[in-house]
């Protein structure tokens, strides 16, 4: 059973479109992170959100942590081919290690 469910699993869009990726759980997390993984590479951290309701912006990417700290979303405005990759959310529940979501594979067509 996946502790963190991501949706959608796959997303193929045209350059310039907007999109939202969701990360949901029944568990409360002390913090939640988003990583992006490009082909042939390991995941790289994009952001950490800690406070319920927190919103963080990273250029065209907007991250939100749910008020109850059980869910998160990633919104990309005007997607570009360079945004192509696997997006992973990861939550911390107090263990030393993170729990990763199932991932959303994004393809942005030029």
């Amino acid at each position, binding site marked *: 059973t*996946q502790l*963190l469910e*991501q949706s959608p*699993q796959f997303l193929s869009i045209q350059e310039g479109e907007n999109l939202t990726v969701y990360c949901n759980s029944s568990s409360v997390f*002390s*913090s939640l*992170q988003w990583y992006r993984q490009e082909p*042939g*590479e*390991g*995941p*790289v*951290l994009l952001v*950490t959100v*800690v406070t319920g309701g927190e919103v963080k912006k990273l250029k065209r990417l907007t991250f939100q942590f749910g008020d109850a700290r059980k869910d998160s979303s990633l919104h990309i405005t005007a997607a570009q081919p360079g945004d192509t990759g696997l997006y*992973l959310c*990861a939550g*911390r529940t107090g263990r*030393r*290690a*993170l*729990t*990763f*979501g*199932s*991932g959303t594979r994004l393809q942005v067509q030029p």
Partner: protein
Amino acid sequence: DVKVTQSSRYLVKRTGEKVFLECVQDMDHENMFWYRQDPGLGLRLIYFSYDVKMKEKGDIPEGYSVSREKKERFSLILESASTNQTSMYLCASSFSQIWRPPRDIQYFGAGTRLSVL
């Protein structure tokens, strides 16, 4: 820049072989992790280590063991490789005090794609 290096990008092994995957980090991180990544399943934690000679089981430790004799090196061992262990293996490291952002960043290696025939 933090560097996490995995010794091999691709490995092909036979069923029943003993397999060693090596990982080295150069940032003096206390924590090191081994994950396996399969399509649709995200990253699943196999083992992690928070200090030299210390280890804890992750979510899927069966069929694997680990060794951490030096702080910078964390090895994953498949005692007798099986076909269901064909996967991408990712190593990561981080500082301790993970409850204090930004010290909770995990840095990943590029991965080892293991095929067991």
